[in-house]
C-alpha cells in the first residue's frame, strides 16, 4: 500500500512554544485514520499543516507523492486535492449552499456556471441536501451547514479529506447525520484523516487510531488495540477517562 499522505519530521512552533515536536505518520489510500488526544496536544495544528493552512516550522508533507513544502509546488493546485472540513463549518454567509459549493469550481477549476452547478447539485445530493441548494447558511441547521461544507470540499473531487473536529460544534441530535455522511464517504473509498472526540464512531469506522499528546504521536494502532489494550500509560489514561 502506497501512502497517500506522508508526514515526515513535522515541527511547528508559535513563537517559542513548540506545538508539534516531530510528527511522522502516513495514511494509505482509502484508509480512515482517527487522531485523538487531549486538547492542546497539537491535533488540529498537525491537520492544518497537511494543507499548509498552517506553515510548518520544519519537516515535509507529501500528498500523493508531491512535497507540499517544496519550492516549485503550486500549493493552491494541491489544496483542491485535499478537502478540509472545519469545526465551525466556515460557510460563506453571503452565498447560498449551492454558491458555497460552486465557488471553487468556478474560480479555481474555471468551470462555467452550468457545469459548476450540475457538479454542485450532485455534491449536495451526496450529503442529502439537494433540496437546500438555494438556502443561505443562516437558514440551515448546524448539521446541515456542516454537510454543505463537506459537499463544498467533495465537489473538487479531493484525493483525501481532512476533518477538524467536524461534530464538536453540533448539538448532539445533529451529529448523527454528519457522521452518516462520513460513513458513506468511507464506504465510497475516500481517504480520510479525522480529528474528533466521537469515540464510538472511531471504534467502529476507523481503520487506525493515532494518539497524540504534547505535540507527539505516542501510540497508534487499530481501534481494538488502542481502545482494548493501550500500551502507553498516557493513552491508557486518556482512553480510560473517555470510557468512564
Amino acid at each position: 500500500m502506497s501512502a497517500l499522505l506522508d508526514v515526515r519530521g513535522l515541527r511547528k512552533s508559535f513563537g517559542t512554544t513548540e506545538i508539534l515536536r516531530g510528527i511522522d505518520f502516513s495514511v494509505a489510500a482509502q484508509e480512515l485514520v482517527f487522531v485523538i488526544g487531549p486538547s492542546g496536544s497539537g491535533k488540529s495544528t498537525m491537520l492544518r499543516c497537511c494543507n499548509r493552512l498552517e506553515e510548518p516550522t520544519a519537516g515535509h508533507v507529501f500528498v500523493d507523492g508531491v512535497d507540499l513544502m517544496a519550492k516549485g509546488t503550486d500549493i493552491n493546485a494541491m489544496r483542491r486535492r485535499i478537502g478540509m472540513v472545519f469545526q465551525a463549518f466556515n460557510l460563506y454567509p453571503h452565498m447560498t449552499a449551492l454558491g458555497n459549493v460552486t465557488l471553487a469550481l468556478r474560480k479555481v477549476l474555471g468551470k462555467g456556471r452550468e457545469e459548476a452547478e450540475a457538479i454542485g447539485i450532485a455534491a449536495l445530493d451526496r450529503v442529502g441536501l439537494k433540496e437546500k441548494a438555494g438556502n443561505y447558511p443562516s437558514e440551515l441547521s448546524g448539521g446541515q451547514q456542516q454537510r454543505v461544507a463537506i459537499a463544498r470540499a467533495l465537489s473538487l473531487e479531493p484525493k483525501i479529506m481532512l476533518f477538524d473536529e467536524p461534530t464538536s460544534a453540533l448539538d448532539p441530535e445533529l451529529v448523527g447525520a454528519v457522521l452518516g455522511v462520513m460513513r458513506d464517504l468511507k464506504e465510497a473509498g475516500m481517504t480520510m484523516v479525522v480529528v474528533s472526540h466521537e469515540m464510538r464512531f472511531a471504534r467502529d469506522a476507523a481503520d487506525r487510531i493515532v494518539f497524540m499528546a504534547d505535540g507527539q504521536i505516542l501510540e497508534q494502532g487499530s481501534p481494538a488495540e488502542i481502545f482494548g489494550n493501550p500500551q502507553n500509560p498516557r493513552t491508557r489514561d486518556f482512553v480510560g477517562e473517555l470510557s468512564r
Partner: protein
Amino acid sequence: MTGLERFQDAFLKPELIERYWPDIVSGIAVTLQIAVAVVVTGLALGLFLAVIRSYRIRLLNLPIIVFVDIFRALPPLVVILIVYFGLPNLGINIPGFAVLWLVLSLVLAAFAEEIFWSGIVSVRKGQWDAARSTGLDHWQTLTSVILPQAIRICVPPLTNRTIAVTKNTALGTVIGVGEIMNQGTSAMSLSGNATPLMMAAVAYVVIFVPVVALGSWIERRFAWKRA
C-alpha cells in the same frame, strides 16, 4: 419691522435669490464635479491600499500606515494651502480645482483605507481558511469571500466619512475654486446680505441628502440573512 421680517430681509431676500441663483447653480455644478471625482478616486485608492495591506508585506505596509496616519491627522485646509501656495515655489503649479480634488481624495483615501481594513480584519479567519483550503488564492479569496462581507460592514462608516470629506469642497473658497461656498460668500460680500449664504446652505442639503439616502440603500442592498 417685525423680527420675522428682519430675518427675511437679512437671510431670504427674494430679489437677491433671483439675482444670485445662477451663481449658486454654477457653484453646485463645480461642487458636484469635485465631490464625485473625490469620492471615486478617494474610495478607489482607499480600497486599493487596504487590499495591498491585506497581503501583509511589511515593506509596503509601513508607508501605507504612515500615509494614512498623517492624512487622518492633518486638517485638509492645511494641506490645501501648502499644496496650492507652497508648491509653486518649487515650480509646480496645480490649478485650484485639481488641488482640491487631489487633497480631498488623499484625505478620503486615508480614512477609507482604515475603514476597509477594519472591515477586512473583522471577517472571521475561518472564512480565509475555508476559501484557501479549496484552492482559492489570496486575491480570489479577498474578492469573492472577504470583501463582499467586509464592505457590507463598511458601508455606514464609509458613507459618513465620504460625506464629511466631500463637504470639505467648501475649502475651495480659500484657493478661488468656484464651488457653492465660494459663490455664496462672494455674493454675500457683494450684496452685503446673508441671503446667498442661505442659498448655499440649501444647495448643500439638496446635494447631500440624496447621498445619505444612497448610503442606506446600499446598506440594505448589501444585506443578507445572518445567523
